[in-house]
Structure formats: structure tokens, C-alpha cells
């Protein structure tokens, strides 16, 4: 079985994000970047399947600027077999990424695509679903457990009322939730060895994909600062404020 995993380079989860002065986006210069944590979980899951003898090859794909090769290399150091870097300097919307991934799927014909359920930078939560739609494949989203069966996979999803278990026919698209696994970090010898693993480079044009944006960003703003609270002396004061200031009772 062949697994395709998509990985995105995002601002590291521990960085305090700052909005650019001109409000067109967030500051990324001199900011630590890492693999999207949900994608790390996707890579980890693929590696575990390979270690269990259930997957023969893991291919990782990342679309974005030159530095994305580092994100691919991280996945290779964790244990993926080879990488594909779709080079593109412009920001990509989920639909564009889904189209790129579809083109890669057409070339690579994997049995499963595993993606993160969302990227922690734009929180779109769309790419996996759009990809499944474009491919006409079944999808299992927000997966917290994944088991390979005969010609199908069983996935457990965390839904409002509890846990939902679905059987998906292969090939299919799966997106990962936090509880699926705890990803490993690459050992130093594996980082050195990963240098020899191949990364193919292609452009969206070569894939014949239209990546023109469909959305216009009007502005990006900092979330409002939390104001300091006030201390009230009596319950009567509280009732008064809830009724007259907050207007909630």
C-alpha cells in the first residue's frame, strides 16, 4: 500500500504571532517555522502503518516556497520515503492546494491520502474535504483512530455525541485529529540519512493546475486585547451590572 501525506510549513505553534503593520497578513520574517502539528500526526500515522508492515511506501507532498523543502526533509527524517515539493511563491488557498494534491494523486496513485484536519495558521479545515470531493473518494475527517482492513480502512471520529466509527473503501482521504497519536521527533542519525532521500520538484504549471486565488483578504487584525476586570463589593452590584451594563439579565 502506498500512502501520500500532505505537509504544510506554518509559523511554529510556540511563536507569538504578530500582525504586519499594513494589516495584509502576519509577520513571517525571522519567525520560526515548523511542520503543521496536524500534519506531523499524519506523517507519524503513515510511519506507524509502514512499521506494522501495512504500508510499503510513504510519499510526502508540500506546496509552497523554497523553504518548504525543510518541512519535507523533516518528514523524511521521521521516516517517510520520498518527497514532492510543488514550488510556488504565492499564498495558496485550500482549493488550490486540493487541486495540486489531486494532480499529485493522479500521478502517484496512492491508496490513502492522509492530511492534517486543518493548518494552525489559517485554520481553514477544507483541504482534505475538497480533495476528496475533487477525487470522488470517500473521506474520514477528524480521525482519532485508524485501522487498515481488507480493501477498506476503519476510522474513529470524535463527534459531538461521542465516537463515530466509519468504514471507508480504498482509496480514500483521511484527516487527522490531535488524539490520533503523539508524533516522534527525528533522531539525529535519521536526519543525516534523510539527506539522501529524493525530493522531486514540480511547479503548479507543470501539473496543469490553476492556483489563482478566489478570495480577497480585506484586512487582518489582532484579536482585541483583554481588558482588566473589576472587583465588585456586593451581589447587588453584580446584578445591577449584569442587568444594566451587560444587558444579559
Amino acid at each position, binding site marked *: 500500500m502506498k500512502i501520500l501525506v500532505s505537509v504544510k510549513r506554518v509559523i511554529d505553534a510556540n511563536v507569538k504571532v504578530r500582525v504586519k503593520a499594513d494589516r495584509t497578513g502576519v509577520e513571517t520574517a525571522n519567525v520560526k517555522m515548523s511542520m503543521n502539528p496536524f500534519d506531523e500526526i499524519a506523517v507519524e500515522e503513515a510511519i506507524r502503518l509502514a512499521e506494522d508492515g501495512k504500508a510499503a511506501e510513504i510519499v510526502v507532498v508540500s506546496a509552497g516556497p523554497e523553504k518548504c*523543502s525543510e518541512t519535507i*526533509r523533516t518528514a523524511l527524517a521521521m521516516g517517510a520515503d520520498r518527497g514532492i515539493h510543488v514550488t510556488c511563491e504565492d499564498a495558496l488557498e485550500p482549493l488550490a492546494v486540493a487541486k495540486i494534491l489531486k494532480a499529485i494523486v493522479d500521478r502517484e496513485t496512492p491508496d490513502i491520502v492522509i492530511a492534517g484536519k486543518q493548518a494552525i495558521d489559517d485554520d481553514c479545515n477544507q483541504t482534505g474535504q475538497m480533495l476528496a470531493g475533487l477525487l470522488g473518494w470517500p473521506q474520514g475527517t477528524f480521525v482519532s483512530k485508524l485501522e487498515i482492513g481488507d480493501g477498506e480502512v476503519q476510522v474513529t471520529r470524535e463527534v459531538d455525541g461521542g465516537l463515530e466509527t466509519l468504514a471507508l473503501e480504498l482509496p480514500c482521504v483521511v484527516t487527522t485529529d490531535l488524539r490520533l497519536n503523539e508524533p516522534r*521527533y*527525528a533522531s539525529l542519525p535519521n536526519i*543525516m540519512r*534523510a*539527506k539522501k532521500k529524493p525530493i522531486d520538484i514540480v511547479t503548479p504549471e507543470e501539473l496543469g493546475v490553476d492556483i489563482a486565488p478566489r478570495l480577497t483578504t480585506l484586512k487582518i487584525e489582532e484579536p482585541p486585547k483583554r481588558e482588566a476586570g473589576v472587583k465588585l463589593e456586593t451581589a447587588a452590584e453584580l446584578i445591577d451590572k449584569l442587568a444594566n451594563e451587560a444587558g444579559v439579565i
Partner: protein
Amino acid sequence: MTDEQESLILDSIDRFIARDVKPVAHDLEAADAYPIEIVEKMKEIGLFGATVAPEYGGLGLGAVTYARIVERVSAAWMSVAGIFNAHLIMAAVVERFGTEEQKQRYLPRFASGELRGAVALTEPDCGTDLQAITTRAVRDGNDYVINGAKMWITNSIYGHIIAVLVKTDPGTDPPHKGMSLLLVEKGDGISVSKLDKLGYRGIDTGSMVFEDCRVPADNLIGGEEGRGLQQILAGMELGRINVAARGVGIAQACLDESLAYAQVRKTFGKPICEHQAIQIKLADMATGVEAARLLVEKAARVYDSGQRADMEAGMAKLFASEVALKNSLEAMRIHGAYGYSTEYNLERYYRDAPLLAIGEGTNELQRIIIARELIKRNPV
């Protein structure tokens, strides 16, 4: 080594620290308990082969990258950096001066962490003046027989193999011509007892007694007597870079905690970072860290270029350890009573930092080395 690889390596180190070191450091250190699980993890991620050449199973990292690793680890818990320091000094000495047979026999097992090492130089009656050691190794057939005592030997309890500095001929002039390094695998004729200490806890520092301890003559590093002191002094260039990088790590950790605390702690209606007395401390601490880091980097670059780096490593070690000492005290002051509390990390940095002024050659000795080298390089 590409920038990309270094960046991935440091990223893995950061994760190792966040996941496997930080959560347990405080309690293990308070109990003075050896971090067995951390060591297993270090084996897994390959730290014991960090500077060992790839042809012998190591990573072949340069000193620049190595120093960056040590800095990060020490900012979390300095003792962890000690577990691979003496080990890698020993490995560096074998790699540089050992016979090919010794390299084949030992380096791959050093690199995997299967055999972890220590370096035993100091004795109860001498440390700085190593030519005064009295531990004796006498040739007997195909063996050497060692008798004597060593003191303050890090990794001597959990380590498996020790590079021991001995006198093979006590009558030479100068004395170092009668000094040799033997690789001693733990076994009969060696007893070790643990020493209690102010800081650098958790890691095992012990006193060792050698009584008719037999070592195959094949374990004489380089196969030739009388070279031991030069061999170990060369190895200690890497050790000084390690110790200097530890200083940067501790100094940085003290700065980071102080910067965060000074912005939230308020006195007289404003955060203490707005009081000039605290601003001066923060500025001096940060400047010290930057300067120390640059000195370490310079020393590491000289080391990596293959030139002798004793002066540069000495300067880095001297300066960075003094910055660590200073920053640990300033951080404690900035934290007021919380700095003095054993619930937080600051008092640990304060107890760990002084070792850096003593180990790998005291700072007094570093000044002697620096001055001597200055004069040698600038004759009139």
C-alpha cells in the same frame, strides 16, 4: 552539514528537551537521581555519537553545531550535557590518537551509547597540576596493572569505560613524558563511591580506587607510552567548548526567566522591568549572553578548522562561565524571594553555574593558558 540539517537537528533537540528533559529535571535533580530514561532517549536520538566521525558510526557534527546543542540542553538541565561531555572527550581522544584497531573496536560502541565513558584525571591531592598525579600503571606481560585513586570523576558510576590518566614512568623529567592514557573497562580492581555536591546533581560524580586493576596493554591509547597528557589536553579543547556552551545556556535561561518575570511582577504600580535598576540588570545580562555566545562560536570555528583552539576555547570557557555565574545571581535578585525558592529553577542555575568556573580547568588556569598563548603568538 547543511544549514537545513542543522536546523532539523536543533529542532529535534528542542523537542527532546521539551518532552523528555524539562518535565522531569526539577524532581530528578532534587532527588539527586540519575536520569536513566533521559539517557535511553539520548541513545535513541544519537547524542552519544554527536562528534564521532560517520565512518565510525557517529554523526560527525562540527563543534559549532555541537555547542548549539549543548547550549540548549544546559538551558534546561546542565547535568544532561555532562553525561555526554566526558564521553565525547574520551571518544575524541580515541579518534585523534588511538590506533586503528582501537578506533574500530570502540568508536562504534561509543557512538551508539552502548559503551558510555568518563575521563579520570583529578586525584584527591591534585587537579590543576596534573603532572603531580600518583596513579601508577605498571606493565606486566600483556597487561598494565593500575593502583591509585581518582576523585570527582563524572560518569564513573553509570559509565562503562574510563579513560584514566596514569603514570607509566614516575621518574621522567618533565613528568608528563611518563604519563599515559589507558582505556579501562569497568571490572575487577575498581571501586567507585558517589560524591554529594552543591549542584550538577543527578549526574554521577564519584571517587574511584584502583587496586591491582588489570587492563590489556592494547588499551593504551595510541599504543605508545608518554603521550597521555598531550592527548587529554587536546581532547579537553572540545570539553572547554562544551563547558563554555553550558555557560551560555544557563546564562540565557536566567535571562529568559528574568525577562518574563520582570514584565509581570509589579511594584509601586508598574512592572519591575520599568524600574531602571532592573533594566540595567536585564541589559547587562543580555549583553553578556550575546558576547559569550559569540566567543563560543569563534572557539568552535577554530576547533572545526583543525587548528589548535586552546586559547579561544579558554577565553570562551572563562567568559561564558563568569556570565553564567553573574546572570544566575542577577536572575535570583530579580525574582526576589521566588528566586530563592526550591520550587523554581533559578536556585538550580545558581547552584549549577559555579562548577563551570572549576571543571575542565579552573578559570584561574584558563587565564594562565590564555596569557601563555598570547605571549607565544606575539613574541617581541
